[in-house]
């Protein structure tokens, strides 16, 4: 059964205090290569069929509920299990 993945990220211009907190912890753990961290959300939606109509619906629900377009961007993609 296909799975539709929706990634939601804070818009680049929006402050991301969670990402900043994670980034702040890295040097304390000895990880020094990372220059910035942004934290988002990943939704996995199980569907019967990832056809065009379903994808359109997922786009709509991602825009309506999963993300807030004022502060977040989202991306939709289909993942098919091997």
């Amino acid at each position: 059964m296909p799975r539709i993945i929706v990634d939601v990220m804070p818009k680049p211009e929006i402050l991301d205090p969670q990402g900043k907190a994670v980034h702040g912890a890295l040097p304390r753990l000895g990880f020094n290569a990372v220059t910035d961290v942004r934290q988002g959300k990943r939704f996995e939606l199980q569907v019967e069929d990832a056809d065009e109509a379903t994808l359109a619906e997922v786009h709509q629900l991602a825009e309506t509920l999963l993300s807030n377009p004022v502060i977040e961007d989202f991306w939709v993609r289909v993942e098919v299990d091997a």
Partner: protein
Amino acid sequence: MKIGVVTFPGSLDDTDAQRAVRLAGGEPVALWHGDHDLKGVDAVILPGGFSYGDYLRCGAIARFAPVMTEVIAAAGGGMPVLGICNGFQILCESHLLPGALIRNDHRTFICRDQTLTIENASTAWTSDYSVGQQITVPLKNGEGGFVADAATLDRLEGEGQVVFRYVDVNPNGSLRDIAGITNERGNVVGLMPHPEHAVEDLTGPGTDGLGFFTSAVKALTAV
């Protein structure tokens, strides 16, 4: 004058909001998130708390509660609606007010007595104040940073839709020190600080918050 107070799963300050309405001379009416029913109220308050556990985003799930269909329709018809803290987040998620609330820039929950300036005293909820007046009410939030794009912020300021601004301290990183806003019509008001916790000397920093509720009671009596 009947003022409804919605209880969502996770609402905290519904009882205090009801009490504030009663002290202001209004009749509080308990509204339930799962009902498509405003029970004939003349105004609605969305109280503070953590509706639906703040899952997904603060206010994001509450926005789709059955009662919100009625609140959104009533607000469109001019009914006074006040969103406090989580209620403000719900109003933004509902697009009844522009912008959004994000996590405090300093990443900690904040609880303090906060001074605000009243910048618009002609909304349904602020007519008992005067422009420039400073009030002190409790503030308690983890995600109270008001954000919107620059064009929206300019429009809000240009149209007098910034109703409250933080004084001395910006407690959460809100852009342009904005603590609360209204819609174009002035009937929908949202703010992060809690006027309902400042209505009695015994339990708050004073009674500066009572004016919200007396404003609404007077506005409704005058209709």
